[in-house]
């Protein structure tokens, strides 16, 4: 609309409207101008889009990390608060890479916890074993690793939380 000039005959019966500009001064954007403008606008949009992408990426990343943190803390609290015997016992081999299904299936205490309530983009792995080589043996170490792929880049990300617990934990 900005760049087109309408040149239709005036409707009959209606007096012509005087043009504010002389006939010879009617002008528009040349295609060149338009192209240049388009290039400039495009160039200006690139950083804006990048900024927006970066912001979105960070929002996604922060959100994912927050969610991963919540998941990790949740699982740690769950295991520490659950039956001590549910996981690695003295003499057993350290249990590594347990998924949520295995974790929740270890004890009726975890009944009601559903792996599907955790977003499946996140891979949660639980390691339970002795808290080091130095006695006492009853002290267990639980490590929860939450891994995921960034939604914008598909880059792998992960966090881990480690703590100890015992039969009479905190």
């Amino acid at each position, binding site marked *: 609309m900005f760049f087109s000039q309408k040149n239709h005959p005036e409707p009959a019966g209606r007096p012509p409207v005087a043009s504010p500009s002389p006939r010879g001064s009617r002008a528009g954007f040349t295609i060149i101008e338009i192209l240049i403008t388009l290039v400039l*606008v495009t160039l*200006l*949009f690139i*950083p*804006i*889009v990048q*900024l*927006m992408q*970066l*912001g*979105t*990426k*960070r*929002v*996604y*990343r*922060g*959100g*994912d*990390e*927050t969610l*991963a*943190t919540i998941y*990790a*803390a949740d699982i*740690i609290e769950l295991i520490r608060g659950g039956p001590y015997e549910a996981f690695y016992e003295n003499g057993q081999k350290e249990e590594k890479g347990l998924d949520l299904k295995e974790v929740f299936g270890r004890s009726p205490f975890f009944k009601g916890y559903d792996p599907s309530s955790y977003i499946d983009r996140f891979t949660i792995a639980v390691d339970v074993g002795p*808290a*080091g*080589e*130095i006695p*006492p043996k*009853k*002290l267990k*170490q639980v*490590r929860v690793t939450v891994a995921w792929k960034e939604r914008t880049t598909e880059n792998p990300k992960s*966090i*881990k*939380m*480690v*703590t*100890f*617990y*015992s039969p*009479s*934990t*905190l």
Partner: protein
Amino acid sequence: MLVIFTLAVMLEKQGKHEDISAHMVYKSEAITAMAEAVVEEIIHNIREQLNIAGNDNQIYYQVRQRTTNDIPIDSAYLKRISPNSHKMLLEEFSIEDQDVVIKGKITDIAAFDVKGFTQEDVRDEIEKSASFEIAISIKWADQYKTVAITRPFKVVRTTMPVFSESTLFVNNAQPIYFGQWPSLYGYDPGKFPAPQNTIQLDHGWHKYSKYNKKSDFTRIMETDTLRQAMVPPGRVFIQKGIVPITNGDRASGMLQKTFHSHESELLPAQAQIKLKDLKTFLTQKGMTVSADPDPSADPVGDTSGTSSTAGDTPAPTVAPGAEAGAATEGESNLPDDGELFVRYVGHGEEVKAETSKLGDKDVDGYGKYFYSFLTGWEEHSAGPDPAISGLDLYGRIVEKEAGEGFSGGGIFGKIAGLIKKATSAILSKLWKKYDIRISPTLVYGQVIQTYFPIVDYVATGWTEKMKNTFSFNPNQVPLPHFDPSFLEKLPQDEPISEAEKLPDTWPADLKEKWLKLPEDIRKPKFYKIINTTILQQNPFGLDFQEFGPLLPQGALFAPAWEALLNYLVPEEDSPIRQYLNNVGSKDEFFLSNEADRKYGFTGGPYAKIFSEPLTDFNPFLFYVKATDYISAIYDPRNPKDSIFLKKYYNKEDEIFEFKGVIYITGTEPLVLGNAKYRGKAIIITFGKVIFSGPFRKEKEDDPEKPEDVSALTIITLGGVVFDTSNRIDAQIYSYIFPPLSAPGKRFYVYGGLGANMFDLTRVEDGGIVVFDWAYHIPLTMDDKARAPYYHVAITDEINKYGYEIRRDLSVFQSEEPP
């Protein structure tokens, strides 16, 4: 464009902050988990080490300190006991030691509020409730956090004084509660000739000596014990009531239905005076003592024709008097050697009777004893085993004489025989060297002693001494009862010296014997003292009307030492009186318990508690010391599922493991038997406790390792039932009901037995109680040795539980506690 650009920038900034804050959230959570790991390891290791002694385990000793001030816990120690978490921090998060700061202290230290036991001179200073305060600060990159926790704990003694020091402990022993067995000279008349049941008390001196590693037993018994007034544990505590401790039988036929005073005393030798010592003592006092040059002057010698156990040794004058050889000030006619015993014998229904029917035989009773004792004792001394009758309080331990085998004759030999059977495994080592007897009984409590005084002299060695001391013989002279109206007619200060002045009812031989008594004991004044003693005494504020009718005619009752002085101090210049005056109020004469020495001899450290009615000794008040609770023995959802078993029974080792103070509020019966246990604990249960079989310690205690000693005290509200004759290793206190034995079961408690009331009719087959030294914590035991007797437990009680997370960077720059 500008707007769009602005929006884009905002979105980017928001995303950035979201990212950063998300990472901070992660770090915050992660660092909290790390700090909790350190806390967890510290608390876990503290918990593990609270009851394990070790040179590098400072917490074990710190929690057992006698203080109410805060006790700082060394940070290096806390770091040392958390190696795994430090390693984890380094390996998983690259956090170095300098970025981990740990501080800790023991605080909120307070005594347990148990009525009576909070008094300063009574309370156990080691026992306490307190809290651990541990703070862990960790710095990770730009994050730092402090996790501070407070965990309450208790330090509890695993034995329960004063009960823990007692072989037999009875709160209310009034006759109405105590019950009696029918008895006649050691028999149940209805079951004659089967011997009567007994309750035997063994106060465990043999173990005590082993514990103290005294190689010279004589030194313990005669030097430490007698001279230093150190009396080993194991005694009878009877709070109130005249106690018909029933049916003791003497070889002479004399019974010892004995009531005891609240004074501490060794009953076998209420006055055991070596004449040599007496002379030495008197010489030191500037007095000259010489032997009696004229044996014929013996006033209590054998004139009845019966052979004297004193042999040819000149008999002594018990108390100097005109007839005895003109004793004057600074001089005595005491013999050179031998010992003087003044002791008391009890009384019972059979003593009062003139004659009693035993089977098809008539036997002499009280009247015969006092009016014809010269023949009576001979007859009765030929009776059956006198030891297997009643609650025998007169045993003791003696060293075998050099080169002699076991001289197990007489009462002691038979007592020893019984004990030997029962505890042969334990005593086997000592047995080779010592004649183990039931040890002397020490009696505490508001109990009145009544007795008949007897004068006895023994001049020879141990064998004869024992033989003489615990059986009647012609050297012993009982003091008969005179009717007050008879005495009133006579001059009070003049000894009766003529047979004609004695009651007509007395046989001639008794008159003859009695007239040879020291003149002090023949004065009417002396018997008046005896009579008035009965009327004037008002011990413990008791109404005489309550117990007066229970006293047999002629019996004395009084605190023993007073009675003794009444007995033998009729003359100012009597050497014996002077001796008694000098020693009578001292421990060397009336032995006080070693625990009493610090506080005086009349009550011991718990005197204040027991100055009030013993109902104040309420074991259930000890719930404040509970370190472990269960609300039921069995799972209410599945009555066959024993919570008690699940919690305290180690299936792998097939043994119960008890620690601390276990409080059971369930009222179901707790059945124990055919099992072993280990650990030191007090179990307080609201229900009944039934012993269905042997219930033993895992192993015999090793005196060298007090930390390995097992000691179990069971307090029961619902009563105790012995459905077994097997040995029960425990101290058992039945708070309300008297202990009960199933028919045909003779209880055997190795530890101690206590009850609010003790009814002999509920334990018809009798039993044995052996005091276990493992429950004894003498005042002289140092803190290191006594430490294993205190259990420490983190109790997780809500009121003191604390958990705090805070951010405080200053801790990384300051040495001050966070």
